[in-house]
């Protein structure tokens, strides 16, 4: 029983990180119809930038904030100068992001070398929560809470503000949205940058536990894609449900059948695709 609870909490921790990363991916997809292969790179860049800044200034908070800022700028510039000109050409956009993914991957290796590292855990979050037999690190609890808050924040922005209404309108039908006076190009840039920052935030949040290492970008990407495929592309609610499903399955899979841990992700995706090709909350 204890084992089950601890594994579920670990699964929830994975789900929290996955939600942070996949929510940006799904929003960018919804607004721009873009399959962003470089999304894992944003996650990776987030950790690396945070690590560098935290090492120089010995302030984790400064590292985290600067990582979000830098990656958001990178995302914005990428969208503005390389993706916007290929609007409504999903294949060209995908290949462009693929080129950037390879570029970032090797550039990170060149700039930061190949040694793995972890971010320091904030001092006030060290130690573990103990309830009866269940021992669970405070830091992981913190990540789950933060991701939940981000989720609520995204939901409020998406459902209760003018910007959110514009985003939802563009997800529904970019052409009609543009006809009503929404600047779809600028909105896309904003959403893409915000999605990049969310991925970087996921990287920073996971940093003290998962750390940074070469190849982390492509390791994460399929997980984020499976989340988005299961949840439905363009849907925040879908990203939440998908993240929980994938986080739990990945975690129990790793614990129970480690050799096939990657493979266990496959089953829910096939099941969802067979029943509903657009994902749980996606639109055709």
């Amino acid at each position, binding site marked *: 029983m204890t084992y089950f609870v601890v594994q579920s909490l670990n699964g929830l921790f994975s789900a929290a990180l996955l939600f942070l990363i996949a929510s940006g991916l799904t929003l960018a*997809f919804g607004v721009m*119809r873009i*399959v962003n*292969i470089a999304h894992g790179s944003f996650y990776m860049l987030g950790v690396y930038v945070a690590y560098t800044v935290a090492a120089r200034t010995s302030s984790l908070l400064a590292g985290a904030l600067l990582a979000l800022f830098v990656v958001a700028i990178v995302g914005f510039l990428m969208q503005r100068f*390389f993706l916007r000109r*290929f609007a409504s050409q*999903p*294949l*060209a956009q*995908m*290949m*462009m992001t*693929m*080129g*950037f*993914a*390879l*570029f*970032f*991957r*090797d*550039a990170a290796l*060149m700039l930061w070398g190949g040694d793995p590292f972890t971010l320091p855990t904030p001092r006030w979050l060290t130690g573990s929560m103990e309830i009866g037999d269940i021992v669970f690190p405070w830091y992981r609890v913190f990540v789950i809470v933060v991701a939940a808050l981000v989720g609520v924040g995204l939901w409020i922005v998406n459902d209760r503000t003018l910007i959110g209404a514009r985003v939802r309108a563009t997800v529904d039908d970019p052409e009609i949205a543009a006809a009503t006076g929404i600047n779809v190009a600028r909105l896309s840039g904003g959403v893409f940058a915000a999605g990049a920052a969310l991925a970087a935030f996921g990287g920073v949040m996971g940093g003290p536990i998962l750390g940074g290492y070469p190849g982390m970008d*492509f390791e994460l*990407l*399929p997980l984020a*894609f*499976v989340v*988005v*495929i299961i949840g439905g*592309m363009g849907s925040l609610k879908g990203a939440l449900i998908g993240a929980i499903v994938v986080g739990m399955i990945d975690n129990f899979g790793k614990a129970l059948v*480690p*050799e*096939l*841990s*990657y*493979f266990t*992700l*496959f089953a829910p*995706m*096939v099941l969802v*695709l*067979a029943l509903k*090709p*657009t994902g749980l909350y996606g639109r055709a």
Partner: protein
Amino acid sequence: MAEPRATAPDWRLVVAGLGAVFLLAAPPFLSAYWVGLLTQVVILGILAMSLDLLIGYTGLPSLGHAGFFGVAAYGVGILSTTYQAGVVASIAGGFIAGTGLAALLGLIVSHVRDVYFLMITMALGMVLWGLSFRWIPVTGGDNGIAGIPRLETLIGLPATGPIPFYYLALVVFAACIVLMMVLVKSPFGLTLQGIREHEPRMRSLGFNTWLHGYLSYVCAGAFASVAGIMWAYYNGFVSPTYLDLTASSELFLMVTLGGPATLVGPVIGAGAIVILKNVMSAYTARWLLILGIVYIVTILWAPQGLWNLGRHRRS
């Protein structure tokens, strides 16, 4: 600037002819290193053409195509080392593994299109990579499988070495390119192109578009398996890098750079990438950085591919 195609000979014919003569006649005059590179070009050329069946002719952008290539290579590797199987059994096993997998996964992916197809094939490709990387008892994990015997010896060629193997690969390549050219010109191939252009119209004409997409996927998987078998014998070794995302995306670039829906274009793309990769590695370890830049430049300046330069864009 419309080309007077009826009078002037198309430069493509000249290039293709020269290329064929070069592939046939040049190797005896080249060093073993360059013969090795040309062998890579023809094997990866088969693979790039097989992906072109999907991307160019059917309009299905697969980002997990290296999976079939890799699974067939692993089939050969596992059968010929762990189980000490004969050459016929190894080749048949590799082919059945790759093609069978395509037949299985095709059931899942054939009813989705466009970006959905892209994401799902990519996720499936990564699953296969994960399997090859983590299923250590069978695949050897990161170490891969070494010690695959030489194909020339196995099938009893009088000579061994790079040049006999090259000509063997060239024969397989020639057979594949002829088969694929027949395939895309056949009524089946024309139907695929119809689906690429306008699927609802094809469906309303009474074509079973799901089945055509599925068969196209399986055919592409079968040709990719042939390439995988040759690649396993060429290297004498299989490892997870054969089927990782970088491999699938290099492959995707070969097709795009060369020109989709041309078959010859992807071979040229394969040649360009293989030679660039090996020449660049002599000067720098930053191959992925360069590959990324080649990607970006291709999309910016030659989005229809080299083989389609000067042709009018399909609307």
